[in-house]
């Protein structure tokens, strides 16, 4: 019997409960928004009719879309409050190493990544957040403001035109639906689903956003610079937590497999539908 069987294994805590809740709310509301919105964008396609029937018609879709939009507003505002508290209490660095804010290193990493793609250099060493994770975060943030703003304009058209000309509503629709397609395609297929879950380091799924922690060895390989810095600063122990064991682990596993499976099938299905519409 080895030591690991007796002692609970330690894991590296990457996300706290707040992060995980934000991801869960974002994931669920985004999926609902996409599925209730895309049939309208592609209303000419044959799949639009039956998927709209499945949802319960345009009125039901409209209601679900607005409920999910409210959930989006709730998590977006929560995130702003969280960032505000983070800044005021200075719980961590805002600029410099290991932040979600862009730095020069991200540009270098991006270039080096393409070098690695063509076998012309080593795999870049990452800090806490890679450039695609930052892209993911900031484009989602920008997208939420853009899609949310234009969505509110169309939700309250009469109020909007008390301030703006009518053509603003035409422009709002074009922005809303295309920004949504961009968000769905780029963030959730290419950047998010692949780069978070499908990339070789985490395939078939990166559980960390659901469980909060990840085996230490694995994390050290993925984010060597953050690990090294914590080792250097002597703060490594702050982020080591016992791995989930027993029932908690199994229940957690089952739940995230179900959620992830559904989300992936849904995303793949809709991506295929839209591709089909664009091609045919």
């Amino acid at each position, binding site marked *: 019997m080895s030591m690991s069987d007796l002692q609970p294994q330690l894991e590296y805590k990457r996300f706290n409960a707040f992060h995980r809740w934000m991801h869960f709310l974002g994931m669920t509301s985004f999926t609902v928004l996409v599925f209730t919105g895309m*049939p*309208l964008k592609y*209303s*000419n396609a044959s799949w*639009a*009719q039956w998927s*709209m*029937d499945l949802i319960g*018609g*345009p*009125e039901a879709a*409209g209601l679900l879309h607005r409920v999910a939009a409210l959930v989006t507003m709730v998590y977006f505002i929560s995130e702003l409050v969280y960032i505000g508290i983070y800044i005021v209490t200075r719980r961590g660095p805002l600029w410099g190493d290991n932040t979600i804010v862009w730095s020069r290193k991200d540009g270098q990493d991006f270039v080096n*990544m*393409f070098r*690695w*793609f*063509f*076998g012309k250099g080593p795999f870049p060493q990452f800090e806490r957040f890679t450039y*695609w994770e930052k892209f993911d975060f900031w484009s989602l943030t920008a997208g939420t403001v853009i899609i949310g703003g234009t969505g509110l304009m*169309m939700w309250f*058209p*009469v109020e909007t*035109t*008390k301030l*703006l*000309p*009518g*053509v603003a*509503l*035409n*422009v709002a*629709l*074009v*922005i809303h639906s*295309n*920004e949504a*397609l*961009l968000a769905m*395609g*780029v963030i959730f*297929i*290419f*950047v998010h689903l*692949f*780069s978070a879950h*499908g*990339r*070789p*380091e*985490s*395939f078939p799924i990166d559980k960390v956003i659901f469980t909060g922690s990840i*085996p230490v*060895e*694995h994390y050290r390989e993925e984010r060597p610079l953050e690990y090294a810095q914590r080792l250097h600063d002597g703060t490594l122990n702050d982020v080591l937590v016992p791995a989930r064991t027993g029932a908690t682990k199994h229940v957690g596993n089952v739940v995230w497999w179900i959620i992830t499976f559904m989300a992936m099938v849904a995303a793949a299905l809709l991506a295929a539908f839209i591709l089909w519409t664009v091609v045919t």
Partner: protein
Amino acid sequence: MSVGRSRALSLALLTASFAALVWAGSAGAQMSDQNERCFECHAKADLGTIMVDGEERSLTVDPVAYRASQHGLIDCTGCHIGFKPQAHTEAESEDWLYTARTTACGTCHGDVAAIYAGSTHGQEHAKRGEGAATPDCATCHGSHEIATTDTIAFRRSAVDTCSSCHGGRSGTYLDTYHGKSFALGRPEAAACFDCHTAHGVLPADDPNSAVSSQNVVATCGKCHADANDNFSSYLVHVNAKDPRDSVIVFMTYAFYATLIAVMFTLGGIHSVMYFYRGRKQGMYRRRHEHE
């Protein structure tokens, strides 16, 4: 079972079902004897066709459908005015057909007929004469199977009728939220005739038009309480891909089309290359050894 017996059985079944149909039809509405005489010939499926305006039309009228229609109790000659009961020529038939498509409607629906007569459709119809491609009553409402207009089916068929001539306009209508939700199962969403009116359609530059600058705010206000000038300047018919419709809408569309193409390409390359290099270096296999 022999062939003879099975044929006899089918014949019996056929007779029974026909009897049931006739009974069902006559139970609700007692048709005038006159119509029965018309149907002696015009219920026959093999009656043949007549050429009207270069279009071949069937001379057969389904008595069951006619009786079930809104006009099921009206005499055939109530609409086909001037019909004479002797064997009739094709020219005469054409006349009776046209009468039934517009003129006769005014007998009962005088108010609507007057509005129609003043509309673009009515004026064009009067100018070009019968047989021209201007919509008359029957174009939208149909003839022998005429139905009430407050049904989903009728609203849908009416939009189709509009688009048979105004294809471009209905195309841009279907790009709006009104059109999209109408098409996908919300038939009470505003459609062509809710804004342009059904019978009094006039060009937007006519002050009496429902969509003229004088009236359009009130027209929007039918659904959108508090609608104002700005609200009504919303472009209902705009093709985002055509800069002549609206430069700003086109620019927005073009910007996003470019952005999406670039981002999808870049995202696609990044993902495919990441996958390719990861596989080549055995990273997918190493990952599993960790678990």
